[in-house]
């Protein structure tokens, strides 16, 4: 399984079109780059001025203050799961999609496992950076067994069918 | 965990992954339900080795939550471990 296609999106694995720039590395003049929140806030003008798309990477506990007003120029938000059991990124994802109308790529990165797949997709993530071998294999084969019936609206409304009967039932198939 | 001045002999206990049953690591390397047949580590070095082996068995998906427990005169010292060994001290509900 090649490591150069770690991004699962639209049903298949892709190369990562983005470059994550470390806090102390210089911003390259062109290309699509993503930076952490602190750097984003500090260098937003420089980011907006350069030639290339802007992405931001948030750690659990980092909120959207200072980022929301630039969402029109951001085309990647990556939310890091330091541990899959730290569920804060799910709320940030939902706020991005539902509260702030973010339509760019919303990527889950870090401890991303197949057993959280449905939760991730429903919370609004549309791409996953997957390094766990078993998860990559299952996604590649399409062999993830999960529950496709849901009892609450989520941020993936466009990809789900409503009903029947109750206002919040959804089906993701 | 309190540091003990005196080393007590220890056995390795865990729960069987599939059944959840209480098991003890035996000298042959297998795990069985009888504390009386458990391998007893009589020195800190032996205890370290025993724990390492128990953890390897955890990683090999044989057992879960392996720990070392102190033994004296063939019985576990801690009340919790005595209960794990001999079962609940209360009978089931009567019919």
């Amino acid at each position: 399984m090649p490591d150069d296609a770690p991004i699962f999106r639209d049903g298949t694995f892709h190369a990562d079109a983005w470059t994550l720039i470390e806090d102390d590395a210089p911003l390259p003049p062109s290309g699509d780059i993503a930076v952490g929140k602190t750097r984003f806030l500090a260098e937003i003008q420089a980011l907006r001025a350069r030639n290339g798309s802007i992405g931001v990477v948030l750690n659990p506990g980092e909120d959207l203050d200072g980022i929301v007003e630039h969402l029109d120029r951001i085309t990647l938000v990556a939310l890091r799961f330091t541990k899959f059991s730290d569920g804060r990124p799910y709320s940030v994802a939902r706020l991005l999609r539902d509260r702030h109308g973010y339509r760019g790529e919303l990527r889950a990165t870090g401890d991303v496992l197949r057993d959280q797949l449905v939760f991730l997709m429903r919370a609004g993530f549309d791409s996953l950076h997957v390094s766990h071998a078993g998860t990559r294999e299952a996604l590649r084969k399409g062999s993830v067994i999960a529950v496709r019936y849901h009892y609450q609206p989520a941020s993936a409304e466009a990809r789900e069918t409503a009903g029947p009967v109750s206002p919040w039932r959804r089906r993701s198939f | 965990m309190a540091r003990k001045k005196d080393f007590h002999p220890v056995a390795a206990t865990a729960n069987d992954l599939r059944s959840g049953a209480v098991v003890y690591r035996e000298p042959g390397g297998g795990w069985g339900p009888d504390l009386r047949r458990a391998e007893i580590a009589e020195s800190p070095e032996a205890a370290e080795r025993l724990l390492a082996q128990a953890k390897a068995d955890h990683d090999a998906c044989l057992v879960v939550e392996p720990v070392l427990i102190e033994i004296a005169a063939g019985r576990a010292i801690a009340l919790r471990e005595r209960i794990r060994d001999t079962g609940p001290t209360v009978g089931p509900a009567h019919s």
Partner: protein
Amino acid sequence: MYRYDEFDHAFVRERVAEFRDQVARRLSGELTEEQFKPLRLMNGVYLQLHAYMLRIAIPYGTLSSRQLRRLAHIGRVYDKGSGHFTTRQNLQFNWIKLADVPQILEELAGVEMHAIQTSGNCIRNVTADHFAGAAADEVADPRIYAEILRQWSSLHPEFSFLPRKFKLAVTAAPHDRAAVQVHDIGLHMKVNEKGERGFAVWVGGGQGRTPMVAKKVRDFLPEADLLSYCEAILRLYNLEGRRDNKYKARIKILVHEMGEEEVTRAIEAEFAQLQGKALTVPAPEIDRIAHYFALPALEALPARSEYYESARSLDPLLALFARRNVHAHKVPGYGIVTISLKPIGQPPGDATSEQMEAIADLAERFSSDEIRVSHEQNLVLPHVKLDDIPVVFAQLQKIGLGMPNAGFVTDIIACPGLDFCSLANARSIPIAQRLSKRFQDLDRQTQIGDLKIKISGCINACGHHHVGHIGVLGVDRKGEEFYQLTLGGSGDETCSIGEIVGPGFSSDQVVDAVETLVDTYLKLRTSPEEPFLSAYRRLGQAPFKEALYAR
């Protein structure tokens, strides 16, 4: 009660298939224990001292006879023939094999049951008044809203990896039988001046290491806003709850650290964004769910049953049962019958498979096919004709469950404790058994009156000792079991956390100590009409402390 339709069946079926796959991947080693543990907890599978324990969800404590029979069957086939009803209205089996769990879940699915979210850092079983739908004093059936919450919280994508567990309770009568003020979210239903239904919303109650009574963040929340408001609370908790320390991770700590004013402001701010949108509960949906909880067709009967009255006058035990274990029903000629699972000297809250089947038969014949589980580890037959109570009582006696001790000193709540639980520091069941035997004389119990003793084997307080009139907390003192006593706790609408009375007692001493407390109460009460809790609140701790510790 709620009945599954195709959608509900499909949901549970797929969840079973998912868990079957997760177990297979665990057994094959593809999943490590660290990865698997949250997944199995979300399906109610604990690893305990002796085996895996399976906690089966009984939503708001409501069961049909068919479901109870299936539980009996599972206990017989996969366990050692008995189960334990818990302080959250669920059922636990203590001797389960992991490898059997997928099959057990499949059998549960066949009767519209599951073990989803009975553990783990997610939203747990929504509990409700065990007299719901039958009690005369309720505003509406709280289970309607518990069911709406249950559905909304099932595999909620945003709230499945919370800092810690999250517990909701709903009550709808002025007298709170669901202990809402010691829940993470407590909902107390009421009607406003315009006749509209809504809830007082309590947040941040809980027991455990740092017991706290909840704060009322909203005096009246319209019923339509129920889900939007809860989503706001959960979102705040998910984002801001502490994740650095397991013992400081519940929402009660967040409420305490933020302060009532700030947390209310934060909840209301998020709610303002959600209100009126996708999670608004439409009136037709409330009606649709309410239909499932409509009162069963009950015969029109006179309020007074001559047969029942005559039987009571002839049988003193039945008379006592009538006084203690039968609660007024909203429909004339009916009663709500409590089946005490606290026979003298037995583990509290346990029932054998045979007993479960006998109760299922009674429910089918005499209680419109319905049983309830109370958070005080008893069962309830909610719709029994007064005419039938004598024969029900006789049947209960035959199966060893006719003890007329509901709310008495021997109606003890106890967690499984160190006999079963890997978290425990001390055993609780033997203490309960010994207390039960000490106080077994029914005349003495009658004399003592209402007295709730609650026993926990560790600080996690699953025995709810903090809200016991007398609370017993088992601790480990240098390898010995030791018991601390608390006094004056209560889980009802006058909610209070019990106060530690002084140094603890050994296992040998603790039963005598409790007896001393009881005797002190009997000596100092103003009359037999002053129950223990009232007397304690009037007298304070001092006389009890003196009785226990004065040499």
